[in-house]
């Protein structure tokens, strides 16, 4: 079985000479199809950098990184992954539907197919009523759902999310988490998810990778053995709290 993400000893240094910043070092990561991996750690520990290496928006300065057994740049050109950032980054001159169609336009998908796919995606994130609205007419949570629909529109095998719910209020955040789990179950996509929130990481993931700063590295891996079907009762189960404690302690250990 090929790894979706296969990293061996990956490191990243920004700049050179006296001003060089070692952002990441010795990252080993094996991610299988269908994994939901969360990266958690304090600000500046290199979570976004690691995500950008996977996305071929940055190049590693050491080690070996393969995405679907290909070089990251090959994987990017093959449109293997979709991205979602903390800010929805919707184009405000395009309607919701046209935003979802943007990657499909770039990929030269024929008009009819494009509009059919956009409709499917908007159904999937339950925004079909808002297809002809402009981004400024939507709430933050709805905008982020559009961003997710846009990332899934071209059916990538990997979804990269960088603190996607960081700007949302707690209630919306929990709804969005449920939503992402549903999409993950329905599409069988693999997800790398960056977050600051321990409960969020535990609730969503199959594995949580705890990172430590200076230089950024993966310190602990915690397998989340909660049942596959997760809902409100999961959030109240004793195992959920145990795992939260485990992640929190791993983060503490990293700090000292």
């Amino acid at each position: 079985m090929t790894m979706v993400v296969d990293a061996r000893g990956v490191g990243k240094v920004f700049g050179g000479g006296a001003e060089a910043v070692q952002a990441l070092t010795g990252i080993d990561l094996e991610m299988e199809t269908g994994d939901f991996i969360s990266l958690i750690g304090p600000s500046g520990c290199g979570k976004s950098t690691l995500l950008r290496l996977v996305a071929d928006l940055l190049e590693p300065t050491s080690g070996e990184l393969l995405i679907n057994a290909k070089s990251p740049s090959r994987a990017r050109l093959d449109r293997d992954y979709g991205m979602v950032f903390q800010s929805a980054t919707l184009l405000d001159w395009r309607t919701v539907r046209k935003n979802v169609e943007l990657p499909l336009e770039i990929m030269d998908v024929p008009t009819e197919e494009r509009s059919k796919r956009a409709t499917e995606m908007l159904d999937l994130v339950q925004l079909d009523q808002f297809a002809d609205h402009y981004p400024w007419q939507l709430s933050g949570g709805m905008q982020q759902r559009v961003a997710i629909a846009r990332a899934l529109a071209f059916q990538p095998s990997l979804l990269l999310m960088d603190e996607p719910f960081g700007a949302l209020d707690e209630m919306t955040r929990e709804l969005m988490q449920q939503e992402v789990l549903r999409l993950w179950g329905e599409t069988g996509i693999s997800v790398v998810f960056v977050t600051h929130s321990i409960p969020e990481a535990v609730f969503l993931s199959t594995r949580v990778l705890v990172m430590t700063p200076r230089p950024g590295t993966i310190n602990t891996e915690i397998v989340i053995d909660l049942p596959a079907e997760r809902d409100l009762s999961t959030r109240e189960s004793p195992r959920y709290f145990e795992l939260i404690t485990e992640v929190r302690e791993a983060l503490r250990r990293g700090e000292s």
Partner: protein
Amino acid sequence: MSESAGKTSSSSKVVRGGFSILAVIVAFVILWEGYKFIWTALEWTEPVNPSNRTLPHTWTIVGALFQPAQRNGPILLFVELKAAIFTLREALVGFLIGGSIGFWLGVLFVRSQTAERAFMPYVVASQTVPILAIAPMVVVWGGKLDIPQWLTVSVIAAYLTFFPVVINTMRGLRSPQPTAVELMRSYASAPREVLWKLQVPAAMPYIFTALKVSAAASVIGAIVGELPAGFRGGLGRDLLQFSQQFTAAPQKLFASVIVAGLAGMVFVGAITLAEHRFVAATRRQST
């Protein structure tokens, strides 16, 4: 429902706009006539002599518009409106030439740092050379190259219009968030697609701001461009002629200045309408 609400508010905006324009005109007339009245009563002559030879009454100026410009000829308003249309046409062509050059230079400079470093200083320098020095040269060169005279005037107008477009196009093309650029990269988009699907749409508000400045500048450029050759038919020649006749009939100069101002306002107004149509309608989050 939101649509009809939008319509009422836009028509009430037009009414309010009309009122404020009227209010400004009334205020201006009161100030003008008030100045004349007080300065005359107190026998002040500084800074401007209030006599009818230097500051004619507002009604004399408006009246001049409705009197024949020459014996048995059509009224001045008609003559000047014809001249304004003539000049606006030159300005429009210059605006289109200058706007396109400005846009493409902006694209080039944002694409290539080398090009920006090499040419940007000259683009800036070009704007410090007075148009009055450039205009005669262009007229002479244009004559040698057998370019129609109105087109040389347009070239002079273009010279005044391209600069704001270059600057604002560059700012606009650079305005998208870094994550938006990364997003486009993650779709493996070609630079051409990043330009047309992200950068240019993002730059539209910036470009329209520049176009409004440029529209006004193009009218000035056209008027100035008409002067060195004594080019007939446009506003430039009339303004020059009336300023030479200022002591005899000052109201004629003031009247044609009003028409020239109106011509510029019509042009800028048209750009503003286009801006509302193409940009503002979908981007109301800023209001």
